[in-house]
């Protein structure tokens, strides 16, 4: 399988605390990789380094493609151009915009019209708006949000918000989608729906996903491979079944989560 992302000896320190300690693993094209670990293991820190919110990490993230990209060379706002789109642990949507408009924010970089064209509503501005709204429609269809696209984000149920955030990442034609705890706070029905959605977007849109998740049932059902970390250190990466049986992983979780 072709490599998409290489995480190579990444470390990150906050003051004296080693949040990430020499993490290395690969993500392959088209797979769904789970990232698990107890609270404070450094999962979100890894995401923030990967998406360049933190810049002062050691090691490298290499995005493979026609020409490999060292993500450190990109600004935080350029990461999306490289094909990395992410969600956040606490939902970060714009409450006073409609669901459709929130999706259009995900396509911000795809608009090719200039400010002047926008101000004067030149044909190109109208065309761009139309083109990306049509694209949003397709994404909304896949995620089953079409019927409510004109409603404000504010006041929507949690499950919908999580789905809108995933929809927003899809608007930038990402190669790799990074989801931070997509199933947290969802009920069983919503979690089942989310599993289907994630499998659907992997199949339909051929994207690769990296998912932080605490819900072990969800991780076992959805992920092709699972990477476990604890106290910032790499433990193992393997298929869900093997990770489950891995003694080191069991130790990390012991007494906290029996069915893991």
């Amino acid at each position, binding site marked *: 399988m072709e490599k998409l992302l290489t995480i190579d000896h990444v470390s990150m320190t906050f003051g004296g605390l080693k949040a990430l300690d020499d993490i290395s693993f690969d993500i392959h094209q088209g797979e769904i990789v789970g990232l698990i670990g107890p609270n404070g293991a450094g999962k979100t820190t890894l995401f923030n380094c990967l998406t360049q919110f933190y810049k002062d990490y050691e090691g490298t993230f290499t995005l493979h493609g026609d020409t490999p990209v060292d993500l450190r060379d990109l600004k935080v706002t350029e990461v*999306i151009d490289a094909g990395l789109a992410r969600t956040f642990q606490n939902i970060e949507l714009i409450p006073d915009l409609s669901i459709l408009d929130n999706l259009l924010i995900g396509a*911000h970089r795809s608009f090719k019209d200039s400010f002047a064209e926008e101000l004067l509503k030149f044909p190109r501005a109208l065309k761009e708006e139309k083109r990306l709204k049509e694209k949003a429609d397709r994404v909304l269809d896949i995620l089953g949000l079409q019927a409510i696209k004109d409603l404000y984000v504010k006041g929507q149920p949690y499950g919908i918000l999580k789905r809108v955030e995933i929809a927003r990442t899809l608007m930038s034609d990402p190669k790799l989608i990074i989801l931070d705890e997509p199933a947290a706070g969802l009920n069983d029905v919503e979690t089942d729906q989310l599993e289907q959605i994630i499998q659907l977007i992997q199949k339909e849109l051929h994207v690769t996903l990296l998912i932080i998740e605490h819900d072990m049932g969800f991780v076992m059902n959805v992920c092709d491979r699972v990477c476990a970390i604890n106290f910032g250190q790499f433990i193992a990466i393997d298929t869900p079944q093997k990770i489950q049986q891995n003694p080191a992983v069991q130790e990390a979780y012991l007494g906290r989560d029996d069915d893991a």
Partner: protein
Amino acid sequence: MKLFMRMDEVLGKLGAFFRKVPYIGYSAFFILLLLIPYYHSTDVISSGQLGIFAYIVIITVAALGLNILLGYSGLISLGTAGFVGAGALGVGVFLELGLPFELAAIATLIVSTLIGALIGLFSLKVEGIYLAIATLFVGEILRQIFTTVPIFGGQSIMIGSVTLLGQFELSTFDQAQRRILFVVIAFLLLIMMIAMHHIVKSKTGRALLAMSRSSSAAQAMGISLMKYRLMAFSLATFFATFSGIMYALYNQSVPTTQWTLDLSLFIIAMVVVGGYKSIYGTFIGAFIIYGIPNLYLKELFGDVSFIFSGVLIILVILFYQNGVAYLATDIRLLYYKLKRHILGGARGKATDD
């Protein structure tokens, strides 16, 4: 009940129609504004009152700019009055240099907007209360410059009659021509309202909102905070300067001393009371904050505008943060709620039987 249903439908369709073709709403608003000089010509409105309406129209443009900053971008400026003054006095200075009015206006806009963008650099460094303090002093510095630097001419700059498009000479001291000047500034307000509509309902408006509501999501979606903060300040300054130019055009004499913090605070009050993010609301806010005290309360109680707007702004912040622009929406929601309640009650009865 049937009547209720039909009313809902009509309201819903009407709303959708105006959202789809916003220009109709703005044009209707413009035509309503034109009724004011008409009533003025029939002496229902006095000369002084026409001036008050003109001031509302003028200051609405500055408040629209501040609404882009405050309502959309979540940034604050206490220096708005300084830039309104810069627009009014700047155009006066350029006119004295012999430029035609339109060129003077463009030159003023360019210079002032560049200064505004520079002020925007502050916002990259500080936020909230510190940004407020920094911009407060920008406003005060500008005010000091206007009153002490000789090119602005001491007490005031006299502009005299203005020639538009090279042939229409309009003087504010002629009653008929003053009415035409009112139509001109009302038309400029219409243009600025539509411009703001285009800005906020597009990529830029969404980016500004994203930046203020969630800076991390904005960055992850590729929205540069630096670019859009500078943009927000440049736009707000542009609108404020434009408002000043309208002031110079209508009044044709510009005092140097009135561009103080008081005015900046009034403009903020207009946005807060009128409604964040609302274009019509900003005008309503300007009418409430400037119009009501000067048109109606002054005769009864004297100059109480500060007390009036102060009390209003506290009431709005405490009890109705949306601002009056959202009254109609909220009343409609309340109506739906009541209706559901009544209908639900009726249905409950039916099943009981």
